[in-house]
C-alpha cells in the first residue's frame, strides 16, 4: 500500500507540475506573439495544399475543346501534375521557412479553433480545478489546431521531405499523372495530423493520409502486384484505424468527452484504461510506422508506389505515425506512467531492427531493400522511445531526454536520407529501366550527381561517422548504454540484450548500404540498359542535392538540431539536452567529452588529403591498363567489351553469407538446387525462398482464420430451408436450456 500511495503522490505532483509549467512556457515573451501567427500560417498551408489537390483534379478532368481529344487529355494530365507538384513545392518551401522560424524562436505553444468540425458536440469548457486549460475558450465542437515543439519538429521534416518529393514529381515519368492530385492532399493530411489539437482532427488527418497514400500507391493499378500491395496496405490502415480511434475515444472518455488535447492532458488516463490506451496506440501507430510484426505491408507497398510517393511514405508518413506514438504515450497519457511501458517498445523495436536489417541485405529490388531498411530504422527509433519511456517512469529525466532526443534526431535524419535514397531509386528506375540489382551496375559513370547524393545518403544509412545517420545512432546508443541504470535486474538485462541487437542491426544496415552502392552504382553494368542509363532530370537532381545538403548540415551540427528539439524534451521528459548538446559537440553526460561531428569531418578531410598527396607524390607517372581480376574466370569474349558482367560479385553473392548465417533461423531461408541429370543440357538452377516470420506467425494464421470464418458464413448462408429452421430452433432450445440451468443453480 505505501508503494501505491507514493505512486499516487508522485502522480499528483507530476500533474500539478504539468499544469503550472505548460502555461508558463507559453508566457515566454516573444514566443507567445509569434506562435499564433505561425499556426495560422500552417492552417493556410493545409488549406492551400487541399486547394491545390482540388485544382489539380479539376484541371485533370477539364479537357479544352479544339485539339484532338487524346492530345488534349494528355496535356490536361500533364498540367494537372505540374500544378500539383509545383504548388506543393512552393507551399512546402514556404512551410519549411515558417517552421524553421518557429523553432528558432523558441517554439511556444499556440491553439486555434476552426469554425468547422463536428456539429452538435457542444461540450462546455471543462472546469478543471483552477482553470488550467491552455486557453479559456469554450469547446464548441470546432476543429482545434495546435502547434508546439513536437509538432514543429516533425513539421520541419515533413516540409523538407515534401518539397523534395514534389520537386522529384515535377520531372517524374508521365504515367504518374493520373494520381497527381492526391500528392498535395497526402501532404495536407500529414500536416493536419501533426497540427491536430484534438482527437477528431487527429483521426481526420490520419485517415485522410491513409486514403490519399492508398490512391497514390495505386498509380500503376494495371499491375496485379500493385493491386495486391495496395490491398494489404489499406487492410493494415484499417487495422490501425480500428485501434487508434478506440484509443483516442478512451482518452476523451477519461476527460469527459472533451476531445481537445488540453483537456485530455489535464485528466490523463490511469490504471487499466491507460494500459488499454497504450496497447491500442502501439498497434494503431505501429501498423502505420512499420513496427516489427506489423511491417509486412511496407516492402510491397513501397515497391509498388511511384518513387516520390515511396519517399514521402518512408520519409514522412512513418514519422507521422511515430509522432502519433510520442504524442499519445508521452504527452496525452501524462508523465506518471509505469516503467514497464518501455519494455514492449524495446522488444518490438529490437526485433524489427534486426529483421529489417537482415531483409535489407537479401532483397533484390532496391526499393524493397530501402523499405526493409526503413523497418530497421523505425526499430532503432522505437528502441529510443522505449528507453525514454522507461527512464521517465524511473524518474531518470536526463537519460530520458537523451533517449528521446536521439529518437527525434534519428527520425529527422532517417526521414531525410530515406527520402533521398527513394528519390534516387526512382531516378535509377527511370534512367536504367529497372530496380533489380542483378541488372544494374556502374551507374556512377552515367549518373554522377545521383551517385554522389546516394553516397551521402548511404553513408547515413550505414551510420558512417560524420553523417546524419551516425549522429542519430550515436545518441541512441549512448542512451541505451546508459540504460542499465533503469529498473530491476530483468529490465537491465533486457536493455543489454537490446544494445547487442542494435549493434547487430547497425552492422547489417552498413552491409546493406555497401551492397546497394557497390552493386548498383559501382562495378560494371550488368545489362545493356544499365550501361546506357540516363542521369536524373534537373528537378530530381535539385531535390537530391537539397536533401544531401540538409543531411550534411544535420550530420555536421547534430547539437543544433537537438537544440531545436529542446522545448519538446523539456516538456515531455522535463529535462533538456542544452547542457550536453552544443553547436559542435554532443555529449552523453554533462561535462564529459562527446561526439564532435565537425571535428571528425575535419580529421577525415585531413587524412584524405594526406593520402591523396602521398599517392600523387609516391606513384610513378603514367599508367598501364591490365585486365581486372575475374574471380578465376577466363578472359571475356570479344563481344563483351566490359567483360562478362555476370562474373562480378552481385547482389545475390553479397546476400549469400548473411543468408546462410542468419536467414535460416530468422527468415526460414531455403535454397533449392535443381541439378540437371548427367547428359542433360539445361543449366542448373538455384532458387531461394524466404518468408518473413511476421507473415508466418501472425498473418498466415489470421488469414486462415478469416478463410475458415468466411467459409462457415458462406455455408450458413446457403443452408436448406429446413436446416435454417433447425439452426434457429437449436439456438432457441439451447437458450432455453441455459435459462433452465441457471434457474436450477
Amino acid at each position, binding site marked *: 500500500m505505501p508503494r501505491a500511495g507514493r505512486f499516487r503522490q508522485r502522480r499528483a505532483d507530476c500533474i500539478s507540475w504539468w499544469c503550472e509549467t505548460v502555461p508558463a512556457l507559453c508566457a515566454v515573451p516573444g514566443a507567445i506573439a509569434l506562435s499564433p501567427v505561425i499556426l495560422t500560417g500552417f492552417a493556410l498551408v493545409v488549406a492551400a495544399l487541399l486547394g491545390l489537390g482540388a485544382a489539380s483534379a479539376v484541371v485533370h478532368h477539364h479537357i479544352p475543346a479544339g485539339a484532338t481529344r487524346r492530345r488534349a487529355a494528355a496535356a490536361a494530365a500533364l498540367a494537372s501534375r505540374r500544378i500539383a507538384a509545383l504548388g506543393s513545392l512552393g507551399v512546402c518551401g514556404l512551410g519549411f521557412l515558417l517552421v524553421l522560424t518557429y523553432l528558432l524562436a523558441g517554439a511556444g505553444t499556440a491553439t486555434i479553433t476552426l469554425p468547422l468540425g463536428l456539429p452538435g458536440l457542444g461540450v462546455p469548457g471543462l472546469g478543471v480545478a483552477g482553470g488550467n486549460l491552455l486557453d479559456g475558450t469554450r469547446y464548441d465542437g470546432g476543429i482545434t489546431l495546435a502547434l508546439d515543439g513536437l509538432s514543429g519538429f516533425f513539421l520541419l521534416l515533413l516540409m523538407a521531405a515534401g518539397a523534395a518529393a514534389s520537386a522529384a514529381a515535377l520531372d517524374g515519368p508521365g504515367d504518374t499523372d493520373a494520381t497527381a492530385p492526391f500528392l498535395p492532399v497526402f501532404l495536407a493530411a500529414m500536416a493536419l495530423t501533426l497540427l491536430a489539437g484534438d482527437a477528431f482532427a487527429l483521426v481526420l488527418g490520419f485517415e485522410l493520409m491513409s486514403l490519399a497514400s492508398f490512391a497514390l500507391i495505386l498509380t500503376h493499378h494495371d499491375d496485379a502486384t500493385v493491386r495486391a500491395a495496395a490491398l494489404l496496405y489499406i487492410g493494415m490502415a484499417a487495422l490501425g484505424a480500428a485501434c487508434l480511434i478506440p484509443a483516442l475515444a478512451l482518452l476523451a472518455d477519461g476527460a469527459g468527452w472533451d476531445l481537445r488535447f488540453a483537456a485530455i492532458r489535464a485528466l490523463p488516463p490511469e490504471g487499466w484504461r491507460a494500459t488499454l490506451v497504450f496497447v491500442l496506440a502501439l498497434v494503431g501507430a505501429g501498423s502505420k510506422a512499420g513496427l516489427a510484426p506489423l511491417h509486412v505491408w511496407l516492402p510491397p507497398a513501397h515497391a509498388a508506389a511511384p518513387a516520390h510517393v515511396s519517399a514521402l511514405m518512408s520519409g514522412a508518413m512513418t514519422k507521422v505515425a511515430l509522432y502519433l506514438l510520442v504524442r499519445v504515450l508521452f504527452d496525452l497519457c501524462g508523465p506518471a506512467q509505469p516503467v514497464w511501458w518501455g519494455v514492449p517498445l524495446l522488444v518490438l523495436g529490437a526485433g524489427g531492427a534486426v529483421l529489417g536489417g537482415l531483409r535489407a541485405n537479401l532483397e533484390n529490388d532496391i526499393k524493397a531493400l530501402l523499405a526493409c531498411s526503413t523497418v530497421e530504422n523505425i526499430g532503432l527509433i522505437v528502441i529510443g522511445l522505449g528507453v525514454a519511456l522507461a527512464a521517465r517512469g524511473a524518474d531518470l529525466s536526463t537519460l530520458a531526454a537523451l533517449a528521446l532526443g536521439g529518437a527525434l534526431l534519428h527520425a529527422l535524419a532517417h526521414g531525410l536520407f530515406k527520402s533521398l535514397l527513394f528519390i534516387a531509386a526512382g531516378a535509377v528506375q527511370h534512367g536504367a529501366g529497372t530496380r533489380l540489382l542483378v541488372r544494374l551496375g556502374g551507374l556512377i559513370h552515367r549518373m554522377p550527381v545521383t551517385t554522389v547524393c546516394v553516397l551521402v545518403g548511404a553513408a547515413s544509412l550505414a551510420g558512417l561517422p560524420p553523417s546524419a545517420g551516425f549522429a542519430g545512432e550515436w545518441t541512441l546508443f549512448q542512451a541505451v548504454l546508459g540504460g542499465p541504470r533503469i529498473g530491476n535486474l530483468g529490465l537491465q538485462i533486457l536493455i543489454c540484450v537490446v544494445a547487442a541487437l542494435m549493434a547487430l542491426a547497425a552492422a547489417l544496415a552498413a552491409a546493406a548500404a555497401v551492397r546497394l552502392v557497390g552493386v548498383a552504382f559501382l562495378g560494371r553494368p550488368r545489362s545493356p540498359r544499365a550501361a546506357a542509363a540516363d542521369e536524373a532530370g534537373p528537378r530530381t537532381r535539385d531535390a537530391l542535392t537539397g536533401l544531401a545538403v540538409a543531411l550534411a548540415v544535420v550530420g555536421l551540427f547534430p547539437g543544433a538540431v537537438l537544440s531545436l528539439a529542446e522545448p519538446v524534451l523539456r516538456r515531455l521528459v522535463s529535462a533538456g539536452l542544452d547542457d550536453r548538446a552544443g553547436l559542435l559537440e554532443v555529449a552523453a553526460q554533462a561535462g564529459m567529452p562527446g561526439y564532435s561531428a565537425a571535428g571528425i569531418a575535419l580529421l577525415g578531410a585531413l587524412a584524405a588529403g594526406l593520402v591523396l598527396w602521398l599517392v600523387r607524390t609516391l606513384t610513378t607517372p603514367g599508367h598501364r591498363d591490365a585486365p581486372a581480376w575475374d574471380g578465376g574466370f577466363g578472359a571475356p569474349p570479344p563481344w563483351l567489351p566490359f567483360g562478362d558482367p555476370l562474373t562480378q560479385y552481385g547482389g545475390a553473392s553479397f546476400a549469400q553469407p548473411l543468408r546462410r548465417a542468419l536467414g535460416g533461423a530468422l527468415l526460414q531461408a531455403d535454397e533449392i538446387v535443381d541439378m540437371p541429370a548427367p547428359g542433360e543440357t539445361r543449366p542448373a538452377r538455384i532458387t531461394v525462398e524466404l518468408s518473413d516470420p511476421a507473415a508466418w506467425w501472425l498473418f498466415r494464421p489470421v488469414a486462415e482464420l478469416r478463410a475458415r470464418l468466411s467459409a462457415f458464413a458462406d455455408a450458413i448462408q*446457403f443452408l*436448406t*430451408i*429446413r436446416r435454417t*429452421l*433447425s439452426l434457429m*430452433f437449436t439456438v*432457441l*432450445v439451447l437458450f*432455453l*436450456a441455459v*435459462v*433452465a440451468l441457471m*434457474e*436450477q443453480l
Partner: protein
Amino acid sequence: MMGGLQPGFGAIGYDLAHLLGGAVLVLSFALLYQRRLTAVINIYAMQSWVLAAAAAWQGWVQSSAELYVAALIALGVKGLAIPLALHRIVRRLHIHRAVETALGIFPSMAVGVALVALAIMVVLPTTMQTQVLTREDLSLALSVVLLGHLMMITRRTALTQVIGFMSIENGLILGAVGVQGMPLVVELSVAVLVMVGAVVFGVFFFRIRENFQSLDDSHLDQVGGAHR
C-alpha cells in the same frame, strides 16, 4: 370471476382450463405422429377447436367479452376455414400420400417429450410470483410452440411445415388467452397475420407444384444453389 383470482387444484376454473390446455398439447403430439396429410389437417382442426373452447372458457372465467370474440375467430378461421382450404389444396394437388419425415416418428416423439420437460423447467421457476394458472398455461403454451417448431423441421413437405407453423400460432394464442388483460387487437393482428401467411403459402404451393411436380422443398435448394 370465480377462478381468475384464486385458482388452484380442485377449483373448476383451474381444472377445466388445465384440461383444455393439456388437450391442445396432446393434439400437438398427435400432429407429430400422423402419417397421412388429411389426418394431419384434421388433427390441426381439432386442436383449433379445443383452443377455441379454451379461449371461451377463459372468457367465461374472466368475464371478458373479448375472449369470446377470440374463441369465435379461432373456431371460424382456424377450425373451419383454413382446414377446409387445406383439404381443397390436397384434393387439387392429389397429395394424399404419406407424410415424408426427416426424423423418424419415435425420435420425434422422444425429442418432443424432452422439449415439454424443458418448457416446464424454464417456465415454472421463472414465473414464481405469478398465479398458478398462468404458470401452467404458459408452460403448456411454450410446449405447444416448441412442438410446432419441431414439426416444421422434421417434415419435408411444405404443407406439413405450414401446419407446424400454424400450430405454433395456436400455442401463442393459448398462452395469450391464459393471461388476463391481453388486448383483443393483438389477437386479431396475430389471426390476420396467420391468414395472410396461409394465403401466401397456398399460392406458393401451386407455384412449387407447377415447377417441380412435388411439394418436397429440397427441390428449392437446387434453385438456391444456382445462385452461389
